[in-house]
């Protein structure tokens, strides 16, 4: 089962690097989804490892929360795009000044 957890760690790392590196808000959001998916994989793996279904229930709840989060997050990206005409995370920087 270790290799599943290793894969989940690798995917999580790639998602984290993506959040840091990419500038397009939509792609940054996709990388967040990738990290959530990696965590789900770990949860499901440990459910099998320990022989009870609690891990799968946790993964299910993560999916539900991710769905809600995507809806609100994409609405925010749309709102920012409407006012700034750009989906770049660098352009929404007015709070700095």
């Amino acid at each position, binding site marked *: 089962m270790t290799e599943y957890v290793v894969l989940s760690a690798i995917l999580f790392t790639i998602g984290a690097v993506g959040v*840091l590196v990419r500038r397009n808000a*939509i792609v940054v959001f996709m990388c967040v989804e990738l990290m959530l998916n990696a965590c789900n994989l770990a949860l499901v793996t440990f459910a099998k490892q320990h022989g009870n279904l609690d891990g799968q229930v946790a993964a299910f709840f993560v999916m539900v929360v991710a769905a809600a989060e995507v809806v609100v997050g994409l609405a925010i990206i749309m709102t920012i795009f409407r006012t700034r005409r750009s989906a770049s995370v660098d352009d929404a920087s007015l709070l700095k000044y």
Partner: protein
Amino acid sequence: MIAFWVLAPLMVIAALGILFVRKPVHAALLLAVVMVSLAVLYLALEAPFLFVVQIIVYTGAILMLFLFVMMMVGVDASDSLVETIRGQRLLAAVGGLALGLVLVIGVAQMALGTAVGLEDANKDGNIQGLANIIFSRYVFAFEVTSALLITAAMGAMVLAHRERLTPKPTQASIAADKVKAYAERGAHLGPLPPPGVFARHNAVDTPALLPDGTPAEVSVSRTLAARGVVRQPPRDVEEHVEQQLEQGGER
């Protein structure tokens, strides 16, 4: 186990691709690859319910939502390669590599032992087992989830809603505007002419011909004209016939 060793490299390559592709649409497609592969892994991990939910909710709903937003924001809104913070990419890569190494080495050193397996927990069926837990121990979390989903739907509606700043045009006001344009500029009162209907072309990208043989520009959509895909209408009919006769003579 075979499924794992086939899918794991594929998933890692697709996930790495998300970091490097320029266009967000390609990133979404690569993410779809990762998510579908993950669904297959869930099946291998004895989680058939999550396999279905992963495909329907993640690949079906969430990824489609991403694609819809990309459609509105603009497909070609690609990343700028200019670094806002100097050396950020390098630092992120080094930090990511460090995090990955720590995680992988840490996980590899831990001995998990033999997996218990879910045969016992799944003996009445995976969905029945999950339902037993969700509606007993996790019933409060489940109820709170419904509140969360309603709040999210409301929030998205509030965020995406836009107040109408100008009154909505009615049939009467459109007619009044047309008559006003006719009185002031002599604009045509009727509808715009339809595109040309010819023996060989009758598509919307072929302009109609005016009586003198010149194309009528108002008969094709302005969008097509801006894209530069408007077809040349057939030449003047006489010229066309002459051309045909010439070709026939040559034959």
